């Protein structure tokens, strides 16, 4: 479904992503794990078109999307729940969801239906629908950010560090939700530092280190890879 071929991405003169290739098949949950500064967020920003690769291609459903604008990539079927959630703090919860449905705004019935669906998935959002998003707790904002990204029913959902800065109870909650969304048929690319939790919900995984993919394989394989155990799962080799 999504194929990333030898992309390189730089911030000014500093190359952050060095020759990265990977792919995602329909229906999969793929996770990219890596430490801070490995370039995980940059990969996400590049797929969504907020940044452009200096070289390489990103092929989504047979179309090279590496040169088209962020808003057209959303229309093509990829949405992202960005790092740090980035809900619109001075919009209400329901306004946030409506903004997520901007591309289908002329079909009011569909927007209403999707909102009902999201309120079903995230009951807390229904309770808070008239509240300003800036007044929600971190966990609630995370729910809102995911729901907002799901409003156009994307074919591929990108989640950038959904667990960052959340209370442990919400972390578990978030991963349960990811599992639920995947069971409903959404293809998901997840970027995480919480390697263990992420591998628990994923089908396949890639390990990113300073802009390069160093290990790849099924979630099971990665979980038991001694290098990963040592550096990312915090288990000592016996």
């Amino acid at each position: 479904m999504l194929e990333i071929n030898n992309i390189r991405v730089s911030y000014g003169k500093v190359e952050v992503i060095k020759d990265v290739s990977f792919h995602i098949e329909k229906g999969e949950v793929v996770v990219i794990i890596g430490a801070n500064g490995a370039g995980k967020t940059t990969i996400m920003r590049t797929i969504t078109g907020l940044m452009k690769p200096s070289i390489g291609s990103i092929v989504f459903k047979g179309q090279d999307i590496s040169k088209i604008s962020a808003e057209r990539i959303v229309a093509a079927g990829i949405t992202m729940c960005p790092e740090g959630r980035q809900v619109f703090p001075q919009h209400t919860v329901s306004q946030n969801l409506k903004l997520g449905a901007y591309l289908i705004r002329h079909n009011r019935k569909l927007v209403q239906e999707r909102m009902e669906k999201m309120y079903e998935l995230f009951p807390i959002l229904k309770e808070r629908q008239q509240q300003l998003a800036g007044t929600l707790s971190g966990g609630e904002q995370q729910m809102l950010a995911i729901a907002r990204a799901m409003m156009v029913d994307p074919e591929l959902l990108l989640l950038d560090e959904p667990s960052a800065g959340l209370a442990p109870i919400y972390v578990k909650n978030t991963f349960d939700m990811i599992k639920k969304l995947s069971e409903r048929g959404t293809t998901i690319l997840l970027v995480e530092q919480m390697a263990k939790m992420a591998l628990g919900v994923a089908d396949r995984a890639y390990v990113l280190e300073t802009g390069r993919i160093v290990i790849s394989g099924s979630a099971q394989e990665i979980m038991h890879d001694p290098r990963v155990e040592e550096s990312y799962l915090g288990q000592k080799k016996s």
Partner: protein
Amino acid sequence: MLELIIAGLTMGSIYALLALAINIIYSTTGIINFAHGELVMLGGMFGIVLVVNSGLPIIAGMFIACGMVAMIAITLYYSTIRPFGDNLTSSLGWLMATLGAGIIFRNVAMLIWGTQPRPFPPLGSEELINVLGVRILPHEIWTLVITFLIAIFFTVVLDKTMLGSAIKATASNRNATRLMGISVERMVLACFTMSGAVAAVAGFLISPIVFAGPEMTATIGLKGFGAAIIGGLGSSRGAFAGGIMLGVLEALSMTMVTPGYKDAIAFLIMILAITIKPEGIFGVAYEKKV
């Protein structure tokens, strides 16, 4: 006394119109268009060409001028603001560029139309009418009414429509807005169009009061900017209230000092207001949640 208040309300309406237009651009791009006063002036000069020289009815002339100034505003965006990229708060290039564009507009206007201020026909009749014992020009009433309607229009667009919601989203977080599939560029262009059209209306309303000429908005432009700050940048209600307040206080102060101090008083009011309430009357101070 009442005459003074009416005059103050009229000038205040003009400041409010400027503040509203400055605000809508501030709310999407986070920058101040320092050439806005000159856009108002161009509106007035186009009025001279269309209404005085070509004999078009005022309303028709106003609509055409709105379109023309809106196009100039869009050109202004592409030539002085767009080149400085997305992260405008980190550079000040746009500041010099919009200031410079304003000077260019003024000088080009002088080359085309000369420096001599010219009379401009008011809206409605030129006869004074008697309202509750006060003699006022119909034009003054029109100015107030039109400004009020535009302020309401802006408030409704921003608070009640999807376009407004997207504009506010653009103001709050550009990248997140793009991730919703919203073209940030188009939102900014929509705002420049509205701002340009309102500038032309302001030009038509102010020209009968101060005469139309290239220098007519030299201080008025700054006061419009001040009115926007007094009301709280980003708030349409604030822009309206700030403009009216500035106009009325300025007019009332004339009862105490000679008119020569008029501008000084206006700027003193602005400085005081900004010192006492820096976030503006309707400004909302909120903390970003991390």
